[in-house]
């Protein structure tokens, strides 16, 4: 099988994942909708996953891909909990605008 990194250099994978990560950051900062903020976080996690798999393939070490599984597991748990919290907030505040969430200072 052809070595992928002979065709597309590793740097490009990394830059791609950095771009995706930055878009995730921008999304977190840009949006007021809590769900979209959540999705931006998922985007960041996936950017990291991409990087991990790239390095794994590059180095020939499967550990990086195993890590990706763990990230997925944690992400799944996080999403489940996060959405549950979100639903609770909506029930109480009738809004999921993060600008409305100012109760943290008490």
């Amino acid at each position, binding site marked *: 099988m052809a070595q992928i990194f002979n065709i597309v250099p590793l740097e490009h994978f990394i830059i791609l994942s950095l771009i995706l990560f930055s878009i995730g950051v921008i999304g*977190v*900062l840009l949006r*007021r909708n809590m769900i979209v*903020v959540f999705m931006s976080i998922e985007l960041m996690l996936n950017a990291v996953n991409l990087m991990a798999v790239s390095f794994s393939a590059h180095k020939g070490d499967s550990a990086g891909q195993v890590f990706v599984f763990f990230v997925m597991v944690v992400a799944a748990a996080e999403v489940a909990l996060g959405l549950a919290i979100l639903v609770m907030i909506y029930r109480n505040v009738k809004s999921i605008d*993060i600008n409305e*969430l100012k109760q*943290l*200072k008490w």
Partner: protein
Amino acid sequence: MENLIWLIPTLPLLGFTVLGLGARSLPKGMAAFIGCGMIVAAFLLSVGLAGPIFSGESLSQDLFTWMRGSRWSVNFGFQVDQLSWMMMLVITGVGALIHVYSAGYMHDDERHNYFFAYLNLFVFFMLLLVMGNNYLLLFAGWEGVGLCSYLLIGFWFSNNEYNDAAKKAFVMNRVGDLGFLLGLFLTLTVFGSLNYSELFAEGADLEAYGSTAIFTAITLLFIVGAAGKSAQIPLYTWLPDAMAGPTPVSALIHAATMVTAGIYLVLRSLAFFELAPFTLNVLMWLGLATSIFAATIGLKQNDIKKVLAYSTVSQLGLMFFALGLGAYVAAFFHLVTHAFFKALLFLGAGSVIHGMSGEQDIRKMGALRKVLPVTFIVFLIGTLAIAGIPPFAGFVSKDQILLAAYEHSPVLFALGIGASLLTTFYMFRLLFLVFYGQSRADHHALEHAHESPLSMTLPLGVLAVLSVVGGFLNWPGLMGGNFWLQNYLSPVVKEAEKHHHISHSTEWGLMGLVVALVLATIFLAYQKYISKAAVPAEDANEAGVGKVLNQKYYVDELYDAVFVKPTQALSAWLGRIFDPKILDGLVNGTGTGLVAFSSAIRKIQDGAVGIYLFIFAFGILLLLAFQFLF
């Protein structure tokens, strides 16, 4: 017997523990019995060591390792050689007598039991001081006796003046102790050991360790300590004030034992001092100056105990003078005889005070010879002894010091005689004013005047006998003696080389001269205070030199102006300005600053999650930028 050395200091400690814990519950008789019993037992145990000591041995007993450094270690152990054995006998012997005396003297005091507890503690520390086999233990005892001195001077602490006296004694001693401590540090640094057995071992080459400068520095620091403890210029002012304590305390601590610790220290460190001729010179002049200085003050004091206090300072000065001259044995000899007759004089004075219902001013006494016959006789013996009338103890020891001075130079001899004659004069002035002439006491005191009980007169009697025969300890060869003490001490203390020998006829001549001068001085005092019946003027009416002497050369005022007042001013400034404004300002400023800062930055924490995310991202950005771009 030698295995019981540890028991000697332990017994007084045990006494202190029992008395201290049981002070509230023990009956007075029982407390006195325990207090005296422990000291007597310690005395008997000490006597029991006579055999090996007389055969020239040095006993030692290590109990445990006390401290261990990387290159040195100090044991908690005892060493009894000829020097410390003699000190132990004086401490426990005179101590026991004074304990017995105290049983009578303090009988009506409500804190009687505490008094005995403190006295026992003092004896413990004093024994530790002389018995320790290293400088550190000596220092521990040194500090301990300072503590006991403080406790006992301020024993009647409800009187503020007495408290001040106690504090003064403690602070003055502290100054000296600092010097001593620095000397110990220097010793440890230079020699890497504090144990006598290593420092002064037979054939140890101390000179290999350092230059004369090192030894001069160490010994000068030791002298600072000794000057503090033994009340020498410039640290002597605490001793006269220390008379605030009960009279047995003055006798035991401030005359017979504790104040001689400085002399003991010098004798213990002779190997150092002999390598530092400069220090010996300092010691000589310091002692001589103190001796004359204190004696002149003594001429014009009217408090019976103050006179004796200045006399003590003067006699201690004489001992240092002798040490400086190289007459070590004479100095130690005088230490021992002085312990006898000065304890006697103090206890006699205590008996007078006791009989006169607490009166201490000699202007309000007189003609007590008939009222207090026993006290009079012993006081007379003590006075004759200190004045230097043969064959009393003081004569022999003083004569040997003066002889050593003559060997050095006739000028020193003359100055020494001067100090000695001053002593004679004020002691006889005291004697005449208290026991002769017309009674000047008020009727109330006179009616109650009474001789002291047996528990007080018995120790007086014993001390009187010792004051008479004490001189035979080192009876000079000239008069058929064999310098017993000198031979006895020879394993520890070796006399310095004599500069030139004096012929027997010169010696007799000097002795005769001294005695004649002393007798003349006594006659002078007799003339003034008995024939003319002169009575010292009120303090306010003194004038000229008399006033300066009466006011102790204004040394206290000088110290007050130079040290106390500036310190107080500094403290006041610190208390008024520095502490509230600057220190509190710093502390409070930290608080108010934080509060202000918090209320400023709490606006950032508005609870809005969006802002948090911004700051969060920005923080990571900063971290990354810092990590990779710089």
